[in-house]
């Protein structure tokens, strides 16, 4: 009885095992096969591109915030695609709708792309633009 109830979860268990297997496999293999070159930089604690030690009260580049904001924006926008993809076949079956569901999503993606184009052209995605720290306006 208990077997039957848990049966639907078997794929999840398999996925867990495969994921764990690949993860540990990669670490073990690179430990065995990989070369080791230690440097001062490499032995420091990892801190997302910042110097990990010293005073925390210094100015951060505004890029950190821009990247974080853009990530959230595009992340949330991309998530909208998932429910659409799930019900897409049913959307086609609505009488008289035709490809309405398809084109609606194309419009949405178009709007997201306009945002992407804007961000790109404004140079937010270029990491090395010193003049941008002064701002594009004024």
């Amino acid at each position, binding site marked *: 009885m208990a077997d039957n109830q848990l049966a639907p979860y078997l794929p999840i268990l398999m996925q867990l095992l495969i994921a764990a297997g690949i993860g540990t496999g990669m670490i073990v293999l690179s430990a065995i096969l990989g070369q080791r070159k230690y440097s001062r930089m490499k032995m420091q604690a990892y801190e997302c591109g910042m110097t990990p030690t010293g005073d925390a009260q210094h100015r951060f580049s505004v890029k950190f915030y821009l990247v974080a904001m853009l990530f959230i924006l595009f992340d949330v926008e991309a998530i909208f695609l998932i429910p659409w993809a799930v019900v897409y076949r049913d959307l086609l079956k609505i009488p008289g709708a035709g490809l*309405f569901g398809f084109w609606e999503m194309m419009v949405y993606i178009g*709007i997201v792309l*306009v*945002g992407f*184009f*804007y961000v790109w*052209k*404004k140079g937010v995605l270029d990491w090395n633009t010193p003049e941008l720290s002064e*701002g*594009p*306006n*004024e």
Partner: protein
Amino acid sequence: MMTNELQYLSILPELILTIFGMLIMVLDPLMADRASRKPMGWLAFVGTLAALGATFYQGTHPVAGTAFFGMVRTDAFSIFFHVVVIVIAALAILSSLDYLETQGIRSGEYYGLILLGTVGMGLLSSAMELVMLFIALEISSISTYILAGYRRRVAASAESSIKYFLLGSFATAFFLYGVALIYGATGSTNITAISQALHNNHISSLTYLALVLMFVGMGFKVAVTPFHVWTPDVYEGAPAPVVALMSTGPKAAAFALMLRVLFGSFGELSQWWLPLIWISAALSMTIGNVGALLQNNVKRMLAYSSIAHAGYLLVAFAAGQDMGIAAAIFYTATYAAMNVGAFAVVSHFASRGERYVSIDDYAGLGRRSPVLAITLTIFMLSLIGIPLTGGFFAKFYVFSAALKSNLVWLTIIGLVNSAIAAYYYLRLIVVMYMKEGDDSVTLVPVPVATAAALLIAAGLTIYLGVMPGGVLGYALLGAQDLMR
């Protein structure tokens, strides 16, 4: 259920504004950094004209009815408010064109944000779903948060933007919480469905809590006491043309939202929310007018005056009935015309860095620039409510509706307040005409775009004061559509 093509007609003004807004966002990065952004401004102006045309098309063709599964409704009410907010946006753009040049702001996004914000304001008057209304509220608010901070080098502007953003998102959270609770209480977020549920079923105590929370959110957006404290600081720091926009556009739209929610959904509970409106109206009028008496900065003075005017508007809410709602709708239109005009004058006169914004700076303006002084005088007289200006009929309709509904005390408070208000508006006129000014500073002649904005605003103010019948008739149609 309408066919798909007709459905799009019901959001045509919003579609046009969105397309123009996005077009500006795409074109702006392609322009040279140092290039003037005036062409973008004109493009945005064309966008508002196209949207206005679309709204008139809606008004003259049979598009009326709900669309998109009851999400939006096109009727006289929505069309009236669309015209109001789109005209406000157009006038704000006109008075921004040269203002931005003077302030050295080169940014096409400014105009894009105005257009996209107007999309939200328009939807606020046509959406029939609380969730949709919430999204519209956010669209209009977030655009104005950013616009408020556009004088980037000025600390006051950043302060204005941050204050508006923090308090504004706090207030919208209240509104959203109210929406969630009303969904819990009635099982729907549709305006008419809620009204039916309240009519047919037992009214749970959750409903009252939801109503109060939504009232807090809406009260903040229209800046009525006790949710008004942000107004003076935000208006003082924000660029003057942006204040012209945000003291009228989002406010008119939020009043549309308030009318929809209070009369559309909670009409059943009017006995219960009436005291809230009564108290809020009396406090707004009094605090707004007394606060304005003490100001030396024109923008702050007009900020307090806007609180007071929101109070007069609430009197019309309290009056209720078709006549009260029509008076409220008429008042938003009139207030928009005169206030946008007043801020257009302030925008031009402020000069580089908004140097001249204190009342004393206006000394001698009557001689230095007769045109500016006369137009500002028209707007001030209208704000007082002198006959032959729109402000007179706006107040007249509000108070006669209030008297018809036996709100004698509220009417008395309102009339006393109108008398107090006359003092600070007249003070500006007196300073302009009867005080010696600093003639050493030469005034820049009024640019064409600003002159057009002033002419339209002054024309509308006088038109509403001489022939209010047509607009009032349309407001009445809107009121009947709302109550239907």
